[in-house]
């Protein structure tokens, strides 16, 4: 891309194309398109409940993992394992939260969140180590670890962390002391959202205004020049970013458990880690833009649920849209690149 504005043009064009494609799918599927789209809108923005208890709440974990994936991709690390890192964080947060329920909140809650972040970074660390030592492609290793994490959750909620009656595969609810406070009475939006926003700003500042962040960007944008002209240790930078990315995803999991679900159960993540890829790519890996795309996809997923309730359109269509976003960005990037040469 020769001028910065062109990257955003690609994103905007991608969105338009996809809206058109989705409408086409709806029409072809014989759905009541206007009813479906109305339901989509209402489900996302149509009422205070929609905004404060659905859209923004769904956007929160997407924000954390979107930042995680965005940071990793910025350094050239293809972290497809945000899903597993999120689950590792959620599990650890639940376990620690159950343990620390009796302590005062200012003490217990931060510890729980930090534990979740640490678990996420450790989970990413396994893949980072495999890449560093054995040259294992991080795409495959992080994917495998996603599956392992899911089974780990399954074992935890049916085993050591299961609620006392041993009937349901989930933990007991967390005590108040380890819950993120809600921001508005009667709505589900919680402090985690603000934490995510703060992290987005911090990450933006880090990448754009600090020397270390500059080095991260250099390694991702031109590893050879970074090494040769800048003397930067590209491999070590990539590893550090990988682990930090895991921490962000783990924090996202901890935030979900302490802010929304208040317990751990199977299926706690309906694929946030994969949606995050679309969130990050559409935002061209820019932390502040990731806030916007996370909100967009949160709206999309809330709307999709409503679309299923009111117009019988399967909600999983959201995944299709996200995949089309990625492909769309790839295609339009190519179109621009070939027009220039």
């Amino acid at each position, binding site marked *: 891309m020769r001028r910065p504005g062109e990257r955003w043009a690609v994103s905007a064009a991608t969105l338009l194309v996809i809206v058109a494609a989705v409408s086409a799918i709806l029409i072809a599927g014989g759905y009541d398109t206007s009813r479906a789209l109305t339901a989509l809108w209402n489900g996302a923005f149509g009422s205070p409940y929609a905004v404060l208890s659905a859209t923004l709440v769904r956007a929160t974990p997407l924000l954390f993992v979107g930042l995680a994936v965005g940071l990793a991709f910025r350094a050239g690390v293809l972290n497809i394992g945000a899903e597993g890192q999120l689950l590792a964080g959620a599990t650890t947060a639940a376990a620690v939260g159950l343990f620390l329920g009796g302590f005062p909140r200012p003490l217990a809650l931060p510890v729980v969140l930090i534990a979740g972040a640490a678990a996420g970074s450790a989970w990413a660390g396994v893949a980072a180590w495999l890449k560093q030592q054995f040259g294992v492609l991080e*795409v*495959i290793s992080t994917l*495998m670890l996603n*599956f392992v994490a899911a*089974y780990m959750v399954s074992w935890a909620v049916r085993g050591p962390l299961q609620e006392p009656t041993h009937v349901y595969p989930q933990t007991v609810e967390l005590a108040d002391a380890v819950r993120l406070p809600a921001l508005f009475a009667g709505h589900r939006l919680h402090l985690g959202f603000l934490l995510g926003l703060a992290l987005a700003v911090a990450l933006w500042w880090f990448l754009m205004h600090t020397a270390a962040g500059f080095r991260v960007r250099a390694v991702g944008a031109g590893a050879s020049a970074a090494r040769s002209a800048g003397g930067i240790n590209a491999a070590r930078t990539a590893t550090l970013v990988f682990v930090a990315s895991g921490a962000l995803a783990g924090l996202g999991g901890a935030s979900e458990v302490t802010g929304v679900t208040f317990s751990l159960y199977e299926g706690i993540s309906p694929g946030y880690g994969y949606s995050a890829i679309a969130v990050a790519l559409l935002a061209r890996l820019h932390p502040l833009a990731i806030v916007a795309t996370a909100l967009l996809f949160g709206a999309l997923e809330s709307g999709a649920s409503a679309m299923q309730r009111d117009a019988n359109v399967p909600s999983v269509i959201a995944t*299709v849209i*996200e*995949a089309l976003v990625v*492909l769309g960005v790839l295609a339009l990037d*190519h179109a621009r690149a070939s027009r220039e040469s």
Partner: protein
Amino acid sequence: MADTFGDFLQASVRTATPLALAAYGELVVERAGIINLGLEGAIIAGAFGALVGAGAGGIGAGFAVAMIAGCAATAVVALVVLWLRADAIIAGTAVTMLALGLTGTLYRSLYGAQGAALSVPTLSPQALPLLADVPWLGRALFVQPVITYALYGLAAALWWWMTRTHAGLALRAVGERPVAAFAAGISPVRVQALALLFGGAMGGLAGGVLVLAQVGTFAEGMSSGRGFIAIAIVVLGRWSPLGVAAAALLFGVASQLQYVFQSLGWSVPYQLFLALPYVLTLLALAGTQRRAEAPAALGKPLDDDTR
């Protein structure tokens, strides 16, 4: 005891069948120099295609539609990687996401949101005369659905094709040193595109096996990472047809271990066994001297002037 062991072996081969099919497809693709992460997408597409095809025209139609669906999924990867020149990793991941989402969407909209157990006819094991009576191995290898016998044939044919035809030679050249193939008059792009289509068809077939020879129905995400396990099998099998067979069997055995443990009365959480193939994949990728045997140009995009 012998019976249990025999059951165990037979189940291992049955589990290994779809893995081997997908792995052979990936073997051809990687021998041409591409790592196809869209294989998972091809498998789930094939599974869904099998459901649709079988519902319309029986098992044969099911397998046919499965292969076409898998082929279509990987065709998108081919387009994005070879024409748009995008990174193969991102393209493959996107196609897998797309396939998972589309099959889920289509399944719910065509067959209902709750997915009442829609069942299709499945292949039952057919014993091969004489061969089935071989002690120990007979039941395991030769009392299987026909598709497994097709797999044996495929493995042999693939080995023969790769070592005894010029086309197989060309494939290997493209994956080792594309410029050499180009200078010999071969078109690396064409070879890679055809390899991808074959890989997709095999992935689709694997998905078909899941539905038409094992589960008898479709469930969202039922591919469960088998596409990525297949990639690990290719690595573990050192990119050779015989090695792939052995590695696939190993994974089949690993996934059946939980039943052996159960019958021995050892209680170990079942999740451990379900996670075992994935952990094994990680170990396999770390442990094998990947660089030594891999096609030299694997994972490297083609140069502009030698396509």
